[in-house]
């Protein structure tokens, strides 16, 4: 099978969906000729024209709100938010408008809109271009949240997102745009709410999201060399969340670490760990452990930034302690 980058996978997903459905269009800052700062959309304006790849002024709430209105009236906008951090600028349009329209209208109005944005630290971009804010969106009922962990997921989840009749926010890890993975030539979609068991194991379950799936896989390699068998699971979407697969794995291994790049407190790791503690309590040898980003604004200096996010070594070290029983009652 061929290998393509995550960036190419996103580009392919958009091109395929725009060819399939003429109501799909892209709107955002520097999406047309510039193809975004990450060059993800290069070539699309040449194929689809400026009516379907629409460059906007730097007005995030404005074009986000227009996406909501277009979605309510027969279009399927893919709104491009250059950095995930800018989501704070569009919170009213996303959380008060898009998320609630279907409910507040008693099911009469739909908002089939995708918000494509990114997450991820260690790009030396400091506190306003490095955050992983998916938990804040996932907190609001009415929005689906997808977190692709490779080029394969990025393509399949984005195609599903575009076909979904609800608002979907998809967060790509901005450090993974050039990472390659096997992506089939033939068309495919990845259903929401179906976790992917990346690696089977028996001693501990490592649940990772987005690029933290790779961190968990590396940790599993380290642990395997020491005779510890780790299962690695990628939920792929956190709304909807495939709770069943996660809980079953927890029951099987009796130990769980949840790894995610959002801030640890009140975050994705807290939510998943809490559900496992509630649903698999009597099967666990220790409380499910959270490993999120440190509860500090992301610092600029590499010496500081690198210690704010979970690493494979850190995950492996906590896994060893859990397996040895050291963290029991200490989470």
């Amino acid at each position, binding site marked *: 099978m061929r290998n393509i980058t995550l960036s190419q996978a996103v580009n392919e997903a958009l091109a395929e969906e725009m060819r399939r459905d003429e109501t799909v269009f892209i709107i955002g800052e520097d999406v047309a000729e510039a193809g975004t700062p990450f060059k993800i959309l290069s070539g699309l304006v040449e194929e689809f024209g400026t009516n379907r790849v629409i460059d906007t002024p730097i007005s995030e*709430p404005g*074009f986000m709100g227009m996406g909501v*209105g277009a979605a309510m*009236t027969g279009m399927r906008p893919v709104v491009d938010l250059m950095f995930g951090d800018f989501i704070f600028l569009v919170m*009213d349009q996303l959380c008060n408008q898009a998320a609630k329209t279907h409910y507040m209208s008693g*099911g*009469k109005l739909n908002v089939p809109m995708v918000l494509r944005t990114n997450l991820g630290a260690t790009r030396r971009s400091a506190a306003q271009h490095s955050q992983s804010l998916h938990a804040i969106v996932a907190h609001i009922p009415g929005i689906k949240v997808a977190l692709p962990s490779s080029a394969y997921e990025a393509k399949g989840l984005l195609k599903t997102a575009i076909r979904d*009749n609800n608002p979907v926010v998809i967060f790509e890890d901005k450090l993974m745009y050039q990472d390659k993975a096997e992506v089939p030539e033939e068309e495919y979609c990845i259903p929401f709410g179906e976790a992917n068991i990346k690696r089977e194991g028996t001693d501990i379950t490592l649940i990772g999201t987005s690029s933290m799936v790779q961190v968990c896989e590396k940790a599993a390699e380290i642990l395997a060399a020491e005779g510890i068998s780790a299962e690695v699971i990628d939920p792929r979407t956190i709304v909807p969340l495939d709770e069943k697969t996660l809980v079953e794995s927890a029951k099987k291994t009796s130990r769980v670490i949840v790894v995610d790049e959002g801030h640890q407190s009140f975050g994705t790791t807290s939510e998943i760990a809490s559900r496992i503690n509630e649903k698999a309590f009597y099967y666990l040898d220790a409380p499910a452990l959270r490993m999120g980003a440190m509860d500090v604004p992301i610092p600029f200096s590499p010496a500081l930034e690198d210690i704010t996010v979970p690493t494979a070594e850190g995950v492996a070290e906590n896994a060893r302690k859990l397996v040895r029983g050291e963290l029991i009652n200490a989470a």
Partner: protein
Amino acid sequence: MSSSSANLSNESIFRMYRQMVRIRTFEDNANQLYLSAKMPGLTHMYSGEEAVAVGICEALTSDDKITSTHRGHGHCVAKGAEFKAMFCELLGREEGYCRGKGGSMHIADQSNGNLGANAIVGGSLGIATGAALSSKLRGTDEVAVCFFGDGATAQGLMYEVMNMAALWNLPVIYACENNGYSEYTKTEEIAAGSITARAEAFGIESHQVDGQDVLAVNKLTEELVARARAGEGPFFLELMTYRYHGHHVGDINREYYRAKEEESEWKSNRDPIIRLRGYMIENGIATEAEIDAINEEVFKDASDAVEYALNAKYPDPSEVDMHVFTDVKHALA
């Protein structure tokens, strides 16, 4: 009335009169439901501003889109809604337009192009502008009208979307209902400079119009809608109007920000319904008896609808997690 109605049919004038009376009557009944503690929550009365919603919506088709505000009952009626489903919504009943999930502040007959009443001041400016973008992308001639108040001109979103609407010649009409008050504060204390100048700065053609003169509002809107359909949009209207009640029904003792004399001056001398009634009689369009008959019919229609809604079913508790997502029957099941 100040405007000529040379091109306006009597049928249209009758319809506008009737729609204004329907709005006033709906609001009078809603106020009574609040005062008699039969309505959950609060509501914001549109009474006094009827000519704005009616004059504008008379110029629209049911395919044209509007977005409405927390003071949205008038827009809802004017865009074609029925009393029964409106009162049911106001009282949180299953047969309401939003199945009781929206209430007064989100009331809308979605089947008539009403994209919802919005309880975030200025929150629908993006939605209306997006509906206009959608109209253009889909190759239709639909126009979108965004109703908002003078208070919303203080929100940044307005400037972002007016900029894009002007850049892309979108078929959107920004209808600023200037009722003189931004909640409990005089507009002149919250808005520096002129309101129409805000739109003019983007090269958007702007008009200030007497919002108590339904014929003037309708005449101007008819022209602008036709031009918007022809690709000449966007446009901006500042409609000078007045709200008879407080910010909401509970805002009763309001002399600290507004004098009673001012209220009675608007009610006695500038009321849009009294003015149109006078015009119709003076010009031989209707007799007193015909107008009284319309009023009676509307009053009865409203009291029947109130009675119906008071006895209508509440939604089943199982509906609480329905309509969170389009494709999941019960989000928490």
